[in-house]
């Protein structure tokens, strides 16, 4: 999934990665990829994890992991950082999801009745990034569909997701619902249909 998500990234673009699966995407990019990773805690030009022993406690990403900064990177305060996000200056956000609705609704911050986890930067990113791509397993651990006709979990943002990349397929959100763009190797369309909680178009 991370390897497929890496193909979504165009040269020269500014990309924000959500916590979890999306953080694996950079491993699948060539070293000269000319991609600028934005981290909403105030960093543009985020590089790979530091060499063992080179960690800087004051240089972290939004998941509080120690990171590095590439040549040409910059640091700034949170007001400027979210100005970039809300203002449409982040070309692509690759986010995780709990549910994606057939209309592009995204739910990725709270489970009804579950522990309150907090919103963080998720709503700003889902609203503000020019393109939102979701990377997620096709179903939950309990086998429930995560791609649904209508989200039942609290929304992060309405109608924001352009594409969903799962372990089974790549699906575009169209005006009529989910459309399969690609199937993962060895996966049949029928399987995707069965595991999706909405009609495929």
């Amino acid at each position, binding site marked *: 999934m991370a390897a497929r998500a890496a193909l979504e990234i165009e040269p020269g673009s500014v990309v924000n990665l959500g916590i979890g699966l999306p953080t694996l995407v950079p491993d699948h990019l060539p070293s000269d990829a000319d991609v600028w990773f934005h981290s909403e805690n105030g960093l543009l030009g985020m590089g790979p994890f530091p*060499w063992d022993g080179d960690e800087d406690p004051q240089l972290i990403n939004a998941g*509080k992991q120690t990171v590095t900064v590439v040549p040409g990177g910059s640091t*700034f305060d949170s007001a400027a950082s979210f100005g970039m996000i809300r203002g449409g200056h982040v070309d692509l956000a690759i986010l995780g999801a709990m549910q994606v609705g057939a209309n592009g609704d995204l739910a990725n911050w709270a489970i009804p009745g579950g522990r*309150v986890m907090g919103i963080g*930067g998720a709503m700003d990113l889902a609203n503000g990034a020019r393109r939102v791509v979701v990377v997620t397993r096709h179903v939950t651990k309990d086998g429930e569909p995560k791609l649904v006709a209508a989200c039942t979990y609290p929304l992060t943002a*309405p109608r924001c997701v352009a594409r969903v990349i799962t372990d089974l397929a790549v699906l575009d959100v169209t005006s009529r619902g989910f459309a399969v763009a690609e199937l993962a190797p060895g996966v049949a369309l029928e399987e995707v249909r069965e595991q999706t909680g909405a009609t495929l178009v």
Partner: protein
Amino acid sequence: MKPRRKIVDTVDEALADLSDGASVFVGGFGLCGNAEALIDGVVRRGVRDLTLISNNAGNLGKGLNRWLEVGIVRRFVGSYIGSNAALHEAMAAGRLEVEIVPQGTLVERIRAAGAGIGAFYTPTGVGTVVQEGKEVREIAGRPHLLEHALSADFALIRARVADPFGNVRFWRTARNFSPAMATAATHTIVECDSLVELGAIDPDDVHLPGLFVDRIVEVREHEDPIEHRTVRKRVGA
């Protein structure tokens, strides 16, 4: 008016007028960029019923987790809880009111208070629980929510260097909420790793101009804990 002499010798002196019921901004993103000595100093003062405004309220029993553990916070305004055990416990025990705000809206509300903007319209939160009870207005064809400025009595800020006027530089991602908070508090207190002379920071390189800073205390040693140590293994090591 700002006091003429801003540098104080001790943390206790810096916090001398922080009292019960105060609202307090604390800069930092999780444990990154915390004013560690000021955070400890507030516990030592024995104040209570604080309103804490900070992105995360500490983690791993460190930083602002101490405030939650000793029970001096009545209300927390922040954006994220996640695996913060002390925060989950305080909430479950009913000891703590919690208001969760989207991170970008939180810092923009603070920036607005510091910049004399009463309120603003943002698209963030439209169509979600954040919208509840708020005015929605269509601007340029897109729905926006009305969000209000958020100020506090105190801001506790960590800086890499400061000069006697209060000009400040931060290091890397330790900047985060601190500059905005410094502008929006009645009393802004800076804990700096190192004091430098007036003029040691080039005018073009000041991250936070000194007019926003009321008190400065130099604290040379910090723990600076790391929440998630992620590294690449050295080849052949």
